[in-house]
């Protein structure tokens, strides 16, 4: 097995659009890296550059010690699982899985062995002689994974492989992919826009925004120590509460809302306070009030949405925030709740650069 190294990789399209603007990354052998970001951020492009399906404008990508910039996709020793499965519709499941091996002139007994082993592992051995159009979405996904596994590559590439499945199957396949990757111990790159998928699958996460890696690290590190406003708002569900504020030397202010306990912040600068829904607590001696608009019951926990009293958002409307509580937390509509939080658990960002200050 070997790792993947990206050195100041760039991608510029002929029309001048910059898809990837200088990415450096060092993926260790056997590691599972997830690229996560909003649509159009360049995460798929970056994956396809590793696969060889997009050219590299400048920089260098290497697998192990080998620079693969000019190596054709089939000779990079990588296997890819596509979003819409991309099975060959005219071949049986067995044909789909063995196609890549036949083209590599592997002998027939070895091909059969690998296909049968992979099929057994993925529980598709009963369908080996079926055509792809006779399979369900979940089964097709397994065949697509099987096609990658039999190749026994140095690197697995996953391009949003679960986004065409229904919610229940997605969770199930997510767990299977993780187990499979652990067992096979193959370096993997996984692209998704779903932050839950990203958090649960990744050894390390790379949050990508506008063609650059915003922050890279273990999932919990990104959750509890985001370097930028973008990372803080992208990681975590429900989303972090963001409150536009200014600092006057003593308190953070937004209209009538005044929050004490913050020091060493620039004055007369637009700031953003970030508070995770789960660090907000309900107590009678709270620092600020919330007018309840909606309660979502998720079974084990409840999410309370409401307007923050005295504060306004950028458009001058009511500022909606979210609070996570236990299942006993059941306020009625329009009820006022007093809330507080420990300032040490909150983040403060500069609004213009997105840089985190506290």
């Amino acid at each position, binding site marked *: 097995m070997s790792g993947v190294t990206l050195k100041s990789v760039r991608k510029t399209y002929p029309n001048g659009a910059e898809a990837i603007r200088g990415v450096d990354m060092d993926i260790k052998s056997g590691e599972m890296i997830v690229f996560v970001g909003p649509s159009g951020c360049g995460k798929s492009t970056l994956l396809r550059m590793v*696969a*060889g*399906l997009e050219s590299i404008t400048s920089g260098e990508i290497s697998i192990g010690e080998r620079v693969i910039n000019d190596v*054709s*996709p*089939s*000779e990079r020793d*990588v*296997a*890819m699982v*596509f*979003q*819409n499965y*991309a*099975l*060959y*519709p*005219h071949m049986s499941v067995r044909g789909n899985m063995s*196609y*890549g091996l036949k*083209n590599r002139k592997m002998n027939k007994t070895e091909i059969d062995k690998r296909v049968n082993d992979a099929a057994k592992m993925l529980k598709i051995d009963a369908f080996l002689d079926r*055509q792809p159009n006779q399979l369900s979405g979940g089964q097709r996904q397994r065949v697509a994974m099987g*096609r990658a596994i039999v190749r026994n590559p140095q690197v697995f590439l996953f391009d949003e492989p679960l986004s065409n499945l229904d919610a229940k199957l997605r969770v199930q396949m997510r767990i299977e992919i993780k187990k499979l990757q652990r067992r096979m111990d193959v370096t993997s790159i996984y692209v998704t826009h779903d932050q839950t998928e990203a958090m649960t699958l990744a050894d390390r996460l790379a949050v990508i925004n506008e063609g650059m890696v915003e922050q890279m690290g273990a999932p919990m590190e990104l959750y509890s120590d985001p370097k930028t406003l973008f990372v803080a708002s992208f990681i975590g569900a429900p989303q972090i509460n963001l409150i536009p504020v200014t600092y006057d030397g003593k308190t953070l202010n937004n209209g009538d809302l005044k929050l004490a306990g913050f020091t060493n912040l620039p004055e007369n600068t637009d700031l953003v306070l970030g508070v995770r829904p789960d660090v907000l607590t309900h107590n009678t001696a709270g620092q600020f009030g919330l007018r309840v608009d909606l309660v979502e019951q998720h079974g084990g926990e409840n999410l309370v949405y409401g307007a923050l009293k005295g504060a306004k958002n950028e458009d001058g409307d009511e500022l909606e925030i979210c609070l996570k509580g236990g299942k006993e937390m059941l306020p009625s509509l329009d009820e006022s709740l007093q809330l507080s939080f420990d300032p040490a658990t909150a983040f403060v960002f500069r609004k213009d650069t997105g840089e985190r200050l506290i």
Partner: protein
Amino acid sequence: MKRVQYEHSPIPYLFVAPQIIIIVIFFLWPAAQAIYQSFLLEDAFGLSSQFVWFRNYSDTIFSGAWLQAAGFTIIFSTLVTFLSLGLALLLAVKANEVIQGASTYKTLLMWAYAIAPPVAGLMGNLMFNPLIGDLYGFMNAVGFDFDHKLDPVDASFVVILISVWKQVSVNFIFFLSGLQGIPKSVNEAAMMDCNSSTRRFWTITFPLLAPTTFFLMVINITYAFFETFGIIDTTTQGAPGGATTTLVFKVFQDGFRGADIGGSSAQSVVLMVMVLALTVIQFRFIEKKVHY
């Protein structure tokens, strides 16, 4: 099993009536006429006719001229079909790879579609004119002793060339849309599985184009059998010595030039049966090998 029966309204019949009427007037009625006349023998002036059973059939089928026409038709249709399909596929694959100026390129390739077969024939006639024809001059300049007025092979070359040229554009359009119907990700998956682009073409692209190819083959054989009449009539007119006479052209010659209504009707009935058999074979045996 008992099906639920609803009361039928006559309106649907009204809607299909125009189509039915057209089929009856322009196909069933003439076909019936042809079958009836194929059993009759007229005198030279068309004043009387007598019922001769299958004599018209035996006379035509066992005549050397008919066998020659049948032989030419088979060679001609096979060559026209394969050449026009092959060329169109090649052009479509290449056009599909073009990124810059793709639409201009495609429009230029589709142009010939708008030309009617007789017009194509007239154009070919000009180009192969012994006095002013550029292609005639070219063929002789590069060393062939080319004379399509005298040499059967040269004459066949002319009609095949024009027929193929006329048909390539239609095939090109269908192949191109077939190629564009293949999902991009399937091609990409193949790129990761197979390094040779030739092998990728024959193992992935071509099998996925099979429905298009099958459809075009049926269309092209029909074209070579019937529609090329216009091309032959405006170029060689079956000459030299009947070497470029197709079965359809012979039906026309015997019936309208030779005034042998009975014989020509018998030929057209035979032709009809042949095409029917060909269609059945195509759908029975080839369609089974096609993945939709």
